[in-house]
């Protein structure tokens, strides 16, 4: 049986994919601490996390958790890691119940590791991610206002709940390069998992290469067209995901704009999340003067923000010829999807799985 299990619970956009790929490839090893990373069809254990909160997956809860229990019982590794950023959507008590039911021998010793990205960066990265998948069609400012109304990025109450459930076995690390061991989240995670034992790490090529603003604008334009034609549909997201894969895999554009906050929005974000940052600093990153890392990050976001907003309209980001070509290609794809949505959905699902499996 595995000696200890570590749940890597996210957050999204904090290097989870890099951590998962490293573990799946066996690229982190220690002579003193043996490590088990049970492999599902994908690098991450999303199905395990989804089975705890997503109604579409909850019927599979027992099957997935028994799978985990069997892997852990069948190994004599010192440490096992279960990793899925989707655990950020799970209530700590729900996870504790699942551990008690399926991994009772680990209930008292399991550790939980999360990384938290400073608010301004999280708003920006969440926006780019949601534009990629078609979850939002808003521009950056509109996205911030919408997400702040829902309290989407209020961290302190959520992480306080994890600490209340698991005490010191819950470790929260700031996703700030200067705060991470070796300036890298994968190395930092290995430090936590191997608990100070020496380890060897071969970092894989960077995952989730960020899309430039021009590509995001193209994706957004396609999503707008798909929504007009197809309405709200998971198909849009699957198609957006596939297009994002292709954009990421393509050679970079000759001229790229990095998505960035502008000053007035950075100030607005600081006003929205200032209290949350201070609370998080006080609870988790105390003893750092004059302010904790989350508060300092909000100030730094204002300092490096652009004076004016960046455009988010393909016609202002692309050359006229490229914008016209994009319009025509988007229209072609929309027509193709509209004609046979069901077949396309299956195809994209298969392709997405292939891509995740590295096929």
């Amino acid at each position, binding site marked *: 049986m595995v000696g200890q299990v570590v749940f890597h619970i996210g957050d999204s956009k904090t290097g989870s994919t890099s951590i998962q790929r490293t573990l799946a490839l066996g690229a982190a090893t220690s002579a003193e601490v043996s490590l088990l990373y049970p492999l599902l069809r994908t690098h991450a254990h999303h199905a395990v996390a989804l089975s705890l909160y997503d109604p579409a997956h909850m019927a599979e809860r027992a099957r997935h958790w028994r799978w985990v229990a069997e892997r852990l019982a069948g190994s004599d590794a010192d440490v096992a890691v279960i990793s899925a950023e989707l655990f950020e959507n799970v209530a700590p008590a729900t996870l504790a119940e699942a551990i008690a039911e399926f991994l009772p021998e680990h209930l008292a010793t399991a550790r939980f590791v999360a990384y938290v990205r400073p608010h301004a960066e999280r708003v920006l990265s969440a926006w780019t991610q949601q534009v990629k998948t078609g979850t939002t069609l808003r521009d950056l400012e509109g996205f911030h206002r919408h997400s702040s109304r829902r309290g989407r990025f209020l961290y302190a109450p959520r992480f306080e709940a994890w600490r209340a459930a698991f005490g010191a076995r819950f470790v929260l690390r700031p996703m700030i390069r200067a705060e991470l061991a070796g300036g890298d989240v994968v190395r930092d995670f290995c430090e936590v998992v191997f608990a100070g034992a020496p380890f060897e790490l071969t970092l894989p090529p960077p995952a989730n290469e960020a899309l430039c603003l021009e590509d995001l604008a*193209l994706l957004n334009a396609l999503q707008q*067209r798909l929504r007009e034609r197809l309405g709200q549909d998971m198909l849009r997201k699957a*198609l957006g995901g*596939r*297009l994002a894969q*292709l*954009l990421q895999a*393509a*050679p970079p*554009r*000759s*001229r790229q704009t990095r998505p960035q906050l502008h000053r007035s929005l950075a100030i607005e974000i600081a006003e929205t999340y200032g209290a949350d940052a201070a609370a998080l600093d006080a609870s988790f990153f105390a003893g750092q003067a004059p302010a904790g890392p989350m508060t300092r990050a909000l100030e730094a976001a204002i300092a490096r923000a652009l004076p004016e907003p960046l455009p988010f309209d393909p016609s202002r980001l*692309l*050359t*006229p*010829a*490229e914008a*016209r*070509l*994009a*319009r*025509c*290609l*988007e*229209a*072609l*794809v*929309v*027509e*193709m*999807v509209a*004609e*046979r949505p069901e*077949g*396309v959905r*299956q*195809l*994209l699902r298969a*392709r997405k799985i292939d891509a995740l499996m590295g096929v």
Partner: protein
Amino acid sequence: MLRSLVLHIGDPDAGAAALRAALAGPLGRGVCAAASSGRLDPALARFAQKAARRGAATGLLSIEPPAGVRPLRLRRLLATHFPDLAPEHPPHLAPEHPPQQPPQQPGPLRIVAYLRPHADRLCALHAAAVAAGRCDAPLEAFLDALEAEGGLGSAARLAPWREVFGPAFVLRPMLAAELTGGDVVQDFLALALPGARRPGPEPAPEPGLPGTLSAADTEVLRRLRLSLHDRPAELRVRTVQHLAGLLAADPDPQAGPAVLSRDLAQRLLGACREDAAALDAAFFPDRPVMLPALEALPGRAEAAAAQPGPDALRLVGIFAALAADLTASGTGPDPAAPGED
């Protein structure tokens, strides 16, 4: 009863689409106009009936029969459907050097055709083949195929028209500087309805008509077709045709003329010089146009043919891969609705 008929014989690559659109609009009292891309005999019969019903004095008809037109057959059909409009000059009376400009006193029947210079024609034929989803060869390889089928020459093809219709057959060079108003529509209307008030600028081309595609668009379509090389032919063709329609419906106002590579320009010069000289001698003896246009090619050529920019090609590659994904499941655009969005 028609007192005159001006018949446009359209090549798909020589302004027929624009002319068809123009003839669909009103052209004045006493004028009956139409365009047809169907079979020749029924098209002429329908037009004769339509002109008679309207009591038109002047008929303008653009025909583009799918199987092409043979001059002798056309002459026979005209005699059947328009017996009062026989060609003014029987073949044996045709002048040895017919006029380059349309006759000042035109006869009751004229047959008008437009001809692009050789390089333009090569590019237009290539664009049409690519836009129809029939071809993914680059221009050089397309020329190889054309030469294997008899080449780009037009002199031998057009000579029988002059023999059959004499000076009633008018060949116009499709060069902006040579055309009245700089375009085919204005030129044709000036020729057919001299002195009449003509419509304004050339109407926008119909979506999906390949003659309107630039060299950059042709390259885009070619790459799309290549990316779909392992898809069923029908899907490949439909997808390419659909994008061709979308590109034609949203023309790039900044698209420039095709730029040939120096090698291709030299090759064309060698291959077509004789034909260009023969065309000038037969149809443009006063001011040769075909040979000068051909001889100007090397001076306008570049070391390599112009391509869309790297970001545009990147975009094409990405969307072509997506289209390949989508066609893998048997999907494709509805060919019945080209250009719709």
